[in-house]
């Protein structure tokens, strides 16, 4: 059941025009990395590593990841709600949590797939053959975790609000991008911080950005709590869901 719903969702969301735009977005850091590789003239000893960790921890984690998760996560279930196809999911003798898990799974796979392009592309171009290559698997895992957390949040948002995209946008651009970066006290409430923290924990590479991040263990714990809470909330909201009257 879960796989069935997830695969239908993959097809529905994956065929939207915005997927192409997101892939293009994901390619931007790759192109910038290409530029770096072939045009940069300075050869500071760990210049590659600095650049890669910079691109990964800022561009990819701050921009590509949340935006992809936003557009994909809000439409995984949101599209069903907007178009009315949600009736096919809830007018069934089917446990609600299965539906939620399926939607989160589909959103996660799509988001992770998109962001992985950035991580692997950047890593392959900049770090191949270098000491810092461990950054790549580290960020791959971190980004997987971050994608899961974001998708869970956005699925919950799409159940609660009809204007989930704008609200999610505000969350990404105001909370994640600005506030949590400049006010260290609230870092523990930021998915961005969790992601970088997990990456830091998985690699011995040490750069400024990584060193300043949240420690790995609290990052994992907090992220898990977030995922659990978000999923629980979504299941509850779906159980109580009432079909909206046509406008």
């Amino acid at each position, binding site marked *: 059941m879960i796989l069935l719903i997830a695969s239908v969702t993959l097809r529905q969301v994956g065929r939207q025009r915005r997927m192409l735009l997101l892939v293009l977005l994901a390619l931007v850091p790759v192109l910038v990395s290409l530029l770096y590789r072939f045009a940069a003239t300075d050869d500071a000893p760990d210049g590659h590593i600095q650049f890669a960790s910079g691109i990964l921890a800022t561009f990819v984690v701050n921009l590509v990841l949340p935006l992809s998760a936003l557009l994909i996560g809000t439409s995984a279930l949101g599209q069903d709600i907007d178009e009315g196809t949600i009736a096919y999911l809830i*007018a069934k*003798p089917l446990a609600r949590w299965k539906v939620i898990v399926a939607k989160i799974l589909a959103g996660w796979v799509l988001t992770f797939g998109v962001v992985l392009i950035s991580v692997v592309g950047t890593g392959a171009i900049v770090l191949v053959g270098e000491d810092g290559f461990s950054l790549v698997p580290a960020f791959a895992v971190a980004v997987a975790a971050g994608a899961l957390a974001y998708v869970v949040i956005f699925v919950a948002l799409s159940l609660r609000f009809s204007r989930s995209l704008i609200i999610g946008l505000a969350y990404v651009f105001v909370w994640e991008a600005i506030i949590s970066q400049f006010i260290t006290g609230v870092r523990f409430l930021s998915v961005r911080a969790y992601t970088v923290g997990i990456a830091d924990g998985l690699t011995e590479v040490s750069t400024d950005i990584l060193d300043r991040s949240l420690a790995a263990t609290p990052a994992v714990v907090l992220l898990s709590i977030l995922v659990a809470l978000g999923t629980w909330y979504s299941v509850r909201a779906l159980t109580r869901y009432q079909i909206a009257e046509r406008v």
Partner: protein
Amino acid sequence: MTTDNSTNGATSGLGAAAPVIGLTEVSKWYGNVVAVNDVSFEIGPGITGLLGPNGAGKSTLLHMMGGLLRASSGSVSVLGEPAAGNPEVYRKVGIVLEREAVYGSLTGWDFVRMNAKLHGIPDADAATKQAIVRVDMEYAQDRLTGGYSKGMKQRIKIAAAIVHDPQVLILDEPFNGADPRQRLHMIDMLRAMAREGRTIVFSSHILEEMERLGDRVLVIVSGRLAASGDFRAIRRLMVDRPHTFRVASSDNRRFAQALVGDAAVTAVELEGGQLLVRTNDYGRFTLEAPRIAQSAGITVRELAPSDESLESVFEYLVAGVRGGAGENS
């Protein structure tokens, strides 16, 4: 059109077997807006139609019967169980909603099959085939539903709703946008299903559709139940109630005198420059009045019904229904 019991729909709750669908004092409001206002009725096997103007609350009622909406007060039960918050009830209930929503990236076959699997049907392929054949969509089953016409989408939605062989089928405005051929086909299909013992509830705002399909009808006006029972009887009631006409003629007094002589007229009233005529026989009056005027040499300048509003119809109907409870067909 016989009223044989196999297609009987709504009962008035007198000693019949447990109703398939039961609403008890159900109301639904959104903030200050009341969509459904204290509605109670019971529905049994056969075809029942929900008739009413747009915005009357038919969709709201159907959504509540289908468990997709919770009543603000009162209770809705299907097959003895509460309709809302009860996923298991969907094993026996199929719903076809009005919106054209289908999963456009799936073929017709895949779409129906998905629904079959989600219902937990052991042999999904067989059930899918059966359902698709029943709605006459075999020829297009391998095309993406996103490319279907409106009528085709409607039929594939019905297939998806009947794939698990439900005992109860709820359809919201199923004839919207259907061409005559599709309409006939759907009517035949629904009749056949009703004969198999199922309970079918559908909504429409078009009288003629009710006439063809719904033997039993529930009339919803402004969120309230205005009438229930046999469609033809209600239609007669709506027409055969006492009417009042406003007349302006070249000589009201003489006209009144002449009219009183006719059997159709029950009362005349002269007020100011106006003549009000009350009649019990709408059909006869509208035929006779011009003849009477002509033979009396009177010019009729205006002849208009003065109580044609839906409210007055409704008031009359509600009074009649409440007064005549237990009126079976």
